[in-house]
């Protein structure tokens, strides 16, 4: 009976219903877009940071992160690589060798290298690294290491490092370092390319050589310091980490996700997430005000109607439930309409993304493009908020309506 009456009421005043629907639908869409944008920016930054460099998950020797000694390695045998390859959710992975050293540009006739810099040498498998991090796309001049070089082995320099050394592709540099067995090594490398990862700090101090060269000069045959594992979305990270941990139990390795190995970055992101929620609460509050306003008006202007209903014998409970059911009916319809609109708007938007004319800097990484998130949260957060808001804001006017004294109500309006 109540539902039927509510239905009739909704349909009777089409104009009022239309505006209520419009307001709530608008509020829903606005919230959904805000959630999608905020989540998108949060996840984008994390994926950009981890995806271009660290990976979302890292496999390394236990204790390597605290004590990054050159001898603290993982043996890259086929048993290990097969497990990583076959673990569901692993999109790509790449092995790395790290060593410190000194790099100098060989110039001048006296053969004295005056331009030197401390360097963080990373040995990589160029193909696998490219599959995992899009490494080749970060090269700003020259070529990558994928094609084998004739004669002297190739090296890639971070852009900042190349600037300090005044080196460019085609130059020969000397790398002076120490192997895992303590022996001093000096080797010539041909600069193949200059690389810009967006991480200014790393680009200032990193050089890349092939894994084979790194194994040979650092006396680390078959051993690596880190395996960076990529997943296709942040959502999968905890699950994949757990699966890898279980699968690699027999191997003496540590499996960590970005929240652990990039702790300071994670903390910065958490601080950022807090401001995200503050933003969302403000936007949702604005939307809730709109809902409150329409619901309140639509109840208040029908005071006379409620008075009549009660004069005809409807109890206060019936009036309350009728107002609530009416409001919720409109809310549900609005949420459905809003969701459809969101699918269209955010769906398209998340596919194309937004390009910034002015690149944004965040924690040393450069962001030029942002894609809003298109996940269940985009619908769930606004839906729940708006549903609860509508329920909450329709109750006081409903109760007020129920306590109308029929005679006075019919007289006043």
């Amino acid at each position: 009976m109540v539902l039927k009456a509510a239905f009739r009421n909704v349909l009777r005043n089409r104009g009022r219903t239309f505006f209520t629907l419009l307001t709530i639908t608008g509020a829903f869409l606005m919230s959904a877009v805000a959630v999608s944008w905020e989540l998108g920016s949060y996840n984008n930054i994390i994926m950009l940071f981890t995806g271009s460099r660290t990976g979302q998950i890292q496999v390394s020797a236990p204790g390597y992160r605290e004590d990054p000694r050159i001898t603290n390695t993982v043996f890259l045998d086929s048993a290990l690589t097969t497990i990583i390859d076959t673990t569901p959710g692993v999109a790509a992975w790449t092995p790395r060798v790290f060593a410190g050293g000194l790099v100098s540009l060989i110039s001048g006739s006296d053969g004295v290298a005056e331009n030197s810099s401390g360097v963080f040498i990373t040995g990589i498998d160029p193909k696998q690294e490219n599959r995992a991090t899009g490494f080749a796309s970060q090269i700003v001049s020259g070529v990558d290491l994928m094609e084998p070089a004739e004669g002297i082995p190739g090296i890639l320099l971070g852009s900042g490092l190349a600037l300090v050394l005044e080196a460019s592709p085609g130059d020969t540099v000397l790398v002076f370092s120490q192997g895992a067995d303590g022996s001093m090594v000096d080797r010539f490398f041909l600069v193949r390319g200059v690389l810009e990862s967006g991480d200014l700090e790393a680009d200032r101090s990193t050089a890349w050589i092939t894994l084979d060269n790194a194994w040979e000069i650092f006396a680390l045959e078959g051993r690596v310091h880190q395996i960076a594992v990529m997943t296709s979305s942040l959502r999968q990270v905890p699950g994949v980490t757990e699966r890898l941990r279980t699968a690699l139990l027999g191997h003496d390795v540590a499996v960590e996700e970005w929240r652990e190995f990039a702790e300071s970055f994670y903390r910065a992101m958490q601080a950022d997430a807090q401001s995200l929620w503050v933003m969302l609460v403000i936007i949702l509050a604005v939307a809730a005000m709109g809902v409150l306003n329409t619901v309140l008006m639509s109840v208040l202007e029908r005071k006379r109607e409620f008075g009549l209903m009660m004069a005809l014998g409807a109890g206060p409970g019936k009036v309350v439930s009728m107002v609530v059911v009416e409001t919720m009916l409109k809310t549900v319809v609005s949420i459905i309409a809003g969701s459809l609109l969101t699918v269209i708007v955010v769906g398209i938007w998340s596919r194309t993304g937004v390009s910034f004319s002015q690149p944004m800097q965040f924690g040393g990484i450069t962001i030029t493009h942002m894609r809003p998130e298109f996940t269940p949260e985009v619908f769930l957060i606004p839906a729940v908020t708006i549903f609860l808001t509508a329920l909450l804001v329709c109750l006081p006017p409903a109760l007020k309506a129920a306590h109308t004294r029929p005679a006075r109500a019919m007289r006043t309006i």
Partner: protein
Amino acid sequence: MMFCTGFLLSVVLSQPTPREACVFLDDLFRSSSSEAVMEMTIVTPDWERTLSLQAWSLGTDHSFIRVLAPPREAGMATLRVGNDIWNYMPNTGSTVRVPPSMMSGSWMGSDITNNDMVQEITYAEDYSASWGDPPDGNSLLLVLVPLQGTPVVWSRIEILLDLETLLPEREEYFDGRGNITRTILFTEPREMGGRKIPTVMTVIPARDGRRTVMRWTSVIFDADVDPGVFSMRNLQSGDW
């Protein structure tokens, strides 16, 4: 009062002043020129290796060190003139000037830093010295605090000296928080090159499990050293 005066008098008579001790330490290894042969053993948790070295010095600002063995490193050399250090690597035949950013880095993979090699600081001139409480009756404890403007990373050095010979036994370097950042042990004092010197020096950094042991095999103080040793040409000659 009588007791106090007597006590002070006895201390003064048996002990040099802190400054005198500093001058003694500063001059211990110093000479107008020197030529030495030594062995440097680097011990880490993962490997241990010994390098044979031959070293020359002239005044306080010229030194030259050539690695004699093992074969893989033989011929590597380091030339220091003033605050500059060049390393020569025979494998590639290249010479590299150590950049300022690497001066606190390790020399030849040891626990001796490039800065240690160029150090022209003297205890007598750059530190304020005082006597501390020695752990036993056979030694003296010299406490050195760098004077304002002395470019060092430690805030205090405590040197344990032998009461009889004043030869150093142990040096402890402290950071600003009072933690020991490195310890140097001086052992096996012997007559060498006409002086009594500790012939083994062990550098122990705070990092676990590492140490570098320098063992002097022979030293000639005030040797007749050709200034040509300290030239780029000699560095790059690879002769040894």
